[in-house]
Each structure stands twice: as C-alpha cells, then as structure tokens.
C-alpha cells in the first residue's frame, strides 16, 4: 500500500463518516432534546435522495434540485411533527417505535407508488465532475471532496447554532429542563417543531448530496438508519460532538475494513460498538 492509496481511503472514510454525521446529528438531537426514538429517520435520507433525483430530472439542474428540495423537506418535517410526533412526547418508547415503524412502511410504499422500485443514478454536476490527480494512475473525484467540505461547513454551522445563538440557548434549555424553560417563556412547542424539522432537513440533505455517489434505490434508508444508531450509541445520546467523532470513526473503520478484510467488513462497525460498550456503556460523550 502506497501513500496515495492510503490517502484515497482516508478521504473516502472521511467523506462517508461526515455524511453519516449529517443523518446521525438529527437523530441524536431529536433523541436528546425531545426523547423520541425515530426509526423513520432513515426514510428522510431516502426521501432526500429521491427528491434530488426527480427534481434534478425535472429542472435539469442538481443545484436547483437541492435549493428546492431542502425547503420541501423542512415543510415535511414540520408537518409530521405537528401531525404525529407531538402526540408521542409523553408516551413510552415502545409507542414511538411502533408509530415510526409504521411510518417507514408508509414512506417506502409511497416511494414505490410515486417513483417506482428501480435503481436510479444521479449525475454529478458538470462543474464538479473532474478529479484531482494524485499519482500517475490514481486520482480523486472533486465531488467527493465537495461533499466532505459541505458536511464540515454544516457541522460548524450546527455547532455555532447550538452554542452561540439565542435559538441554540433555548434548545439547550429545553433539552435540560422542559418545564423550567417553558416557565421562563420559551415556546417549547415551536422549538420542538423547529428541531424536528432541522433533523429531517439534515438527513434529507445528506441523501441529496449522496445521491450522485451512492445512486438512488429502494430501502436505502434502512441501512443508513442502523449505522446511525451505532453512531449514536458510540457517541452518546444527545451529543452532537460525540456523533461527529463516532461518525468519522465508523467511516474510517468501514472503509479500511472493506479494503483489508472484505468478508468481515459488514461486522467491523458493530465490533467497534462492542468495544465502546465494554469500555463506556453510555457512549463516549454522555450528556451531563
């Protein structure tokens, strides 16, 4: 293995990990702040990918598809929270599992009705379709670097939002003590709707920008969802910082696992989880 090859794998692992982070951060925020187990979170990733494919086909522009797709998913998130999820805040996790499992079936079937069951490819925007040569015969696609860049930008924005803004302060207050925050005049209902919509939009955006790399196919959400659960378990529920670290760790484990031990790569991320559980049953960054 020479240096360029290792570099490519590192970049791939980083890109995969950061993409996972976008999905997992929404999952961990909704867990941490609203106490909701959302099995349907993977479906938002799938919806994002399919939206990117169908809108890009309609408008002939990938960028326009994303610009139109993201607001659509924000509206979807707000609607779902108002209509369904708000009834689950005081219920046992079991009912959250039940309802969100039902939602998965609904989303998968609606996808089948609206967009069919075929696998589709989305082409990389022409502007970003080149690659950067690393050695004589190895090069790295620009688009993957752009994905990583976007994800890092969003991670930084998320950090700024939660730590530095007034809205973030309200989110943190609401997550540590709902009643007290409400008594201080914070509109918790509105806040929850916003947080949920933010989670949906992040997952859908991840699906959109991943579409040109991973293609668009039925049940693509389920796989991402389960890996994101592992991310949340490793990172610690509610910790965005933990989710970032765990995502990158899993991205690297998976990528290098596939190169070094292809037959056992599927298990490598779970073995990582076992190790973390043995060491810290509540994840690397348990929220105080």
């Amino acid at each position, binding site marked *: 293995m020479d240096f360029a090859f290792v570099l490519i794998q590192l970049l791939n692992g980083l890109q995969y990990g950061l993409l996972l982070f976008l999905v997992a951060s929404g999952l961990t925020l909704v867990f941490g702040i609203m106490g909701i187990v959302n099995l349907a979170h993977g479906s938002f990733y799938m919806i994002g990918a399919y939206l990117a494919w169908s809108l890009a086909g309609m408008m002939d522009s990938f960028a326009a598809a994303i610009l139109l797709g993201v607001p659509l998913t924000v509206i979807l998130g707000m609607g779902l929270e108002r209509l369904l999820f708000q009834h689950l805040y005081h219920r*046992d996790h079991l009912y959250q599992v039940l309802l969100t499992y039902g939602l998965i079936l609904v989303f998968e079937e609606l996808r089948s*009705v609206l967009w069919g069951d075929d696998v589709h490819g989305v082409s990389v925007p022409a502007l970003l379709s080149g690659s950067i040569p690393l050695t004589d015969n190895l090069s790295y696609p620009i688009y993957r670097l752009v994905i990583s860049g976007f994800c890092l930008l969003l991670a930084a924005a998320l950090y700024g939002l939660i730590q530095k803004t007034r809205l973030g302060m309200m989110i943190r207050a609401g997550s540590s003590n709902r009643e007290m925050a409400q008594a201080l005049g914070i509109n918790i209902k509105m806040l929850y709707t916003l947080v949920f919509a933010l989670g949906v939009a992040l997952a859908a955006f991840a699906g959109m920008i991943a579409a040109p790399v991973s293609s668009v196919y039925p049940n693509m959400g389920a796989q991402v969802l389960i890996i994101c659960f592992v991310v949340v378990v490793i990172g610690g*529920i509610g910790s965005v910082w933990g989710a970032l670290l765990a995502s990158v760790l899993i991205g690297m484990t998976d990528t290098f696992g596939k190169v070094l031990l292809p037959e056992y790569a599927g298990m490598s991320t779970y073995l990582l989880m076992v190790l973390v559980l043995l060491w810290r049953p509540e994840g690397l960054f348990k929220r105080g």
Partner: protein
Amino acid sequence: MRSKLTPLLLLVAVVLLAAFPFVGEKFYIQLIAKVMIMAIFAMSLDLLVGYTGLVSLGHAAFFGLAGYVLAKAAPQYAAANLWTTLPLALGACAVFALLTGFLVLRTSGIYFIMVTLAFSQMLFFVFHDTPFGGGSDGIYIYAKPEIKIGATALLDLEDFKVLYWFILGLMTLVYLFLRQVLDSNFGRALIGIKTNEHRLRALGFSTFRYKLASYMLSGMLAGLAGYLAALQFGFVNPEILSWHVSGSVLMMVILGGMGSLHGAALGAFVFILLQETLSNQSWFGPIAKHWQLAMGIFIIAVALLLPHGLVGLGSTLGNRHKETGGHD
C-alpha cells in the same frame, strides 16, 4: 388483564385450532401453522418486552440463528435428527444470548433498543457476507427433521397435517410453560424489575442476573420458533435475520397488548392474517401490491389510539378520558 373467562376461551381456541385440519384446505392449514410459529415467536418477545420491560428490536437474531443451525447441521439431502438439531439450535441461541446479554443489559431504554438492533444486524452480516453463511442466496433444507425413538418414527413431519398439530402442541406447551414461569417467584421478580428496578435492587435482588435469565429464555424460545419456521419453509436466507422480522414481531406484541401472553399470540394471528388479506390480489387487485401502505397506516393508528393493544380494547374504550401509558 386476565379475566376468569380467559382460560376457557383459550381452551376453546386450542380445540378449534386442533380441529381445523379436518375442514381446512392445505393452503390455509399451512398458513395457520406459520401463524402459530409466529405466535411462539411473539410470546417469547413478550417475556422480554411486556414482562421484563426490555424493548428489543433485534429478536430476529435468535429466530434466524436457530434456523441457520438447522440448515447447517442437516445432512444435505437426508433428514436431520430432531433430537440432536433442536437442542443444538436452542443451545446456540442460549450462547448468543449469554454473550450479547452481558453487553446489551449494561444499557437500558433507548440504548437497549439500538444495541439489540445493532447486534442482530451484525449477525445478519455474519451470514450474509462470510463464506460460512452461504451468502444472500441462503440454504435449502430438503428433508424435514425426523423424530425417532430407536428405529421407529414417532411423527412424520413431512405430512403437513402432522406438522400442523406438532406446531400447535409446541405453541400450547410454550404458553403453559411461560404461564408457569411468570407465576413463579422468578416471574414476579421480572415484573418487579419492569415496574421499578431500583426498588427491586434495594430489596436485595441481583436484577442483572434476572434480566440475563429472562433474555436467555426469551432468546431460546425465539430460537424454537426460528427452528420450526426453517423446518416448515425448508429454506433459510439472511432475510430471516433482518430487522424487518424484528420489527414485525415487535408489532405483533404491541398490537396484541404487551404483558399478556395470549395477547401476543393474538397479535401474531391478526398481524399475519391482515398481511395476507391486504396483499390478496383477488380481493384488492392491483393495489394489493402496495399492502404495506395500509399496514403502515394501521400500525400508526394503533400507536396513536390503542395504548393497550387489542386485548385492552375494552378498557381503552372505557377509559377514554384518563391519561394512559407513558413515563419519563
């Protein structure tokens, strides 16, 4: 939730089920046999979810593992011996439960849900990716296992009616066995753990050991269901370990009303018969292809409207004004 009438109703149900092969067609006999296997599976999960308070989203791991043990242990074209393969399958489930139990039981609540799911997914990849598992194509089991004493065969499981009664007998035994377990001090301790684990621990119970025992027992009974399913279908593939199977069986338990063994069994009946009805092309024509849409809406409606499942339907209607369910 158990009334005085319940044992009588259950007895009637078993008698009706036992009589069914005399009147039913082959297709329906095999369908009900499949439903009864799922009822065993659902009851095993109910021990964990409904009585011990541990919500597992990875129960398919045991179901699939036992099926794969049968497929791997059976000779390629001859019949396997039930006396050796069944204990082997249940033993494998017990060992898997012991190993994963030490890890998953260190967690609780949301974590438990996610970690059990992750472990079942790990096992999925073991059978899906490694050369040992036979890949995504799966493995055929050409002959049904034999039940012999000496040289005489006790039951011929190749006969679909005999197989039906065999499964009915096992389902009834599992129900009676779990009833005994739950009425014992052990069962009471489990219910205590579900209600208030801290208090049980303060009373001097080693709750971890109780939970581990419940987890192992539940896993082995799920293994029994998985063994029977592999035996009936004559085929295993990684799909039987998938999280859709775990999700479906959890739906059955919640649908029926958790913390009620016959409720779990009822949930299995309703779930599978609903699935068969909704996907019936001669009734619903082209929309039958999209039966999961109706199923999903049904599940969402149950989650929102029926906090105690189907067996609690009566009390739910009676207590509409009361706040129900839910803690933390």
